[in-house]
Structures are given as structure tokens and as C-alpha cells.
């Protein structure tokens, strides 16, 4: 099982993702951070295989957190899950900062699982 940290200020998004990942049988959600600051702390304490992170959050936004996470750990695997995915500048900035992929909201289970499995293949 691959460990996933979800970072989103929305409880409902965290629940949506958790349900999708639990159904897959390949991923286990190990934590839910509500802003970029919590993402950095939880990455250090939980050591997740993948971080699914929103961009638009209070306290510290996702792109700022991504910049710090990639500086602290060049192997960190962050997938941005955001309603701003279709904004070209934001998408490009995320990739340049080291995001492994960007999933737009509203998302579908099939897309989420494909992106995460490609990024972190599980040993069956």
C-alpha cells in the first residue's frame, strides 16, 4: 500500500479522495492537512509516498508549499489537485516547481488513480 497525504482546506474534497483511494486497494491515506504549512510538517512526520495538494488554501497556498517541499526533499512526489489546473500560468508554474502532475477539479476517480499509479506503481 502506498501512503498518501491529502492537503486541502476542504473537508469534502479530502473525503472524496479518501473514498476513491480506499476503493482502489492500492493507496492508504495517512493524513489530511488543511494548508501548505501543515503539508510541510506532515511530510516530515508521516513520510508519505505521494502528496495530493490543493493550490488555493489559507495560511500558506499550495504553490508556496510546493516550493518549500521540493527544496527540502528533491524526491518528493507532489500532485496538485486544484480547480485552477486549467489556468495555463498556474499549471506551468506548478510543473516548473516540481509537481509531478496536476489534476483539475472536478476530478474523476479513473484520472486520480491513473495519475497516482503511474507515479508510484504498487507491487501487487
Amino acid at each position, binding site marked *: 500500500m502506498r501512503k498518501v497525504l491529502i492537503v486541502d*482546506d*476542504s*473537508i*469534502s*474534497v479530502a*473525503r*472524496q479522495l479518501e*473514498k476513491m483511494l480506499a476503493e482502489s486497494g492500492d493507496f492508504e491515506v495517512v493524513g489530511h492537512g488543511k494548508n501548505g504549512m501543515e503539508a510541510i510538517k506532515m511530510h516530515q512526520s508521516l513520510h508519505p509516498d505521494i502528496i495530493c495538494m490543493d493550490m*488555493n*488554501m*489559507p495560511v500558506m497556498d499550495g504553490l508556496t508549499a510546493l516550493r518549500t517541499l521540493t527544496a527540502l526533499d528533491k524526491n518528493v512526489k507532489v500532485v496538485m489537485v*486544484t*480547480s*485552477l*489546473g*486549467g*489556468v*495555463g*500560468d498556474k*499549471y*506551468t508554474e506548478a*510543473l*516548473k516547481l516540481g509537481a*509531478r*502532475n*496536476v*489534476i*483539475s*477539479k*472536478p*476530478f*474523476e476517480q479513473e*484520472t486520480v488513480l*491513473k*495519475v497516482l499509479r*503511474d507515479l508510484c506503481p504498487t507491487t501487487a
Partner: protein
Amino acid sequence: MAVMFFGQYLVERGVVTREVLLQAIELQESVNLSVGAVAVSMGFLTETEVERINQAQRTEDLRFGDMAAKLGLLNQEQFQQVLTKQKNNHLYIGEALVKVGGLTGEELPRYLEEFKQNQAQYVTDRVVIPEGVANAQIWEVFADLTYKMLTRVARLTFHSEPARVATALPPFSTIAAMEFTGDVNGTYLFAVQDGARKRIASAILNQENVDLEEEEVLDDTVMEFVNVVCGNIAAKVAQLGSSFEIEPPELLDGNSGLSVPPDRTGILFPISLSDGEQASMAIFIK
């Protein structure tokens, strides 16, 4: 599926990798020059004059060409020549992907057609904006994407009523709002009563019965709906050449209604839901 741009669509489909897309974007950035840089390359302006125009734009809200004309640095005919050259030399992302080897010349039209069909669901339908309101095309996108997401994300059946300028948003039990700042500024508001809130929660959480859910969770689903709508609006508006940033969504106390602040113009987009309940989208434009 959300509002996307072509490069993103190709990465999501697994047609090109993020590394190849980044190479193509870097190529685009080196080829696609700003209006000022094109004017310099044509000998119409010096770099010092471009800097002077950029400085002046920081204190007065004028486009580059208008500011250059105001300062007497560029005439209308020269500006048109600059725009034409900029347009003719523009490298689109698809062409850039072919140049860096991510796609072949034969594949490009096929994927462009696929992309067009995929995004056809987000082609803006006509929404009439009250006369005299500036930037009508942008507010049309706000209304149209709200209606589309109400169907696709919230799975609500409804009838949209004509938009009107108003001085207040009537009372609703739940009002979620999002500030936006940039080429246009204001607050996006989405207001519902309890029945619609439950149905939105049911759709977003993908669970039939939400009766036992806490208030906080039900409210969160309405805020997330607003987040999804506004993010996709930002993407669509960017395709029209304008941009704005959005703040995280917030919940407002709407039991007594909300007055439109004196420095803003309020537009109401009333929505009649199929079960008879009323909802409303509103924009308080700064």
C-alpha cells in the same frame, strides 16, 4: 472533466510527458515576445522607452499601445504593425510540441480535434448581461459556468432567470463567497436554501443520504462547489486573454440578505430549482 488547455489535456491523456511539455513551454517563452520586445525588434522603440511605458502603466490603467500613444512614442499605425508581427510569429503550444519532438505533424491535427470535442461541453452559451455593465463577456462566463457546474457537479435541475442589476442579495440560509482580483475585481457569491445545500452535499460526497452529516460538512460542500466553479471560470477567462487570482472560499451570514457595497455593482442571477426552491448566483463587481 474540467476546463483545460491543450498541453494539460495531452499530459493528462498520457500523450506527452510533463518534461516534454515543459520543453515546449520553454521554447514558446523564448519565441513569443512581448509587445514591447517586438516594437524594439522593429526599431519603433528603444528598451529605455519600453521601460518608461511599463513604469507609466503602473500608475495608470492603460494598455501598452494606448500608453505608448499617450506618451507620443508610438503611433496607431506602428502599433498595428507590431501587433500583426507579434501575432504572425506566435508559436502555439501544439506547434511547439511538434518542434521539440513530443508530437508529429500528422498527430497534431488529430489531437487538436479530440481536444476540441472534449472541451465542447465548456463552450460558452449566451447569457444576457444587463445593459451598461462593463466586461459583459467575462460575466457571461461566470454565469454560464455556474449553470454548467450546477448540472455536472451538483447534479441539480434548474431554470435560470434573467440577470438583473440589484442593490442586495436576498436572504438565504447558506451563502458561499469568493473574492477575485486582477483584470476584473469583485466577489462571486452563490446562495442556496437548505434543500439545495443537501443535494449539493449528496452529489459532491457521492453519498445518497447526508441527513447525519454535520453542518460544517454540508457548508463545506457548497464552498467547494464555489471553488470548483471559480477555478474553472479563471481558466476560461484566461483563454479570453484576461486573468484574476482567487482567494479561498468563505461562508457569509446571509440570513438577512447582503447589501451590495456602495463602491460595487451587483448583478443577480436568480435560479429556480426543479423542486421549487430558489437559489442565486451573484457578482458584486468592484
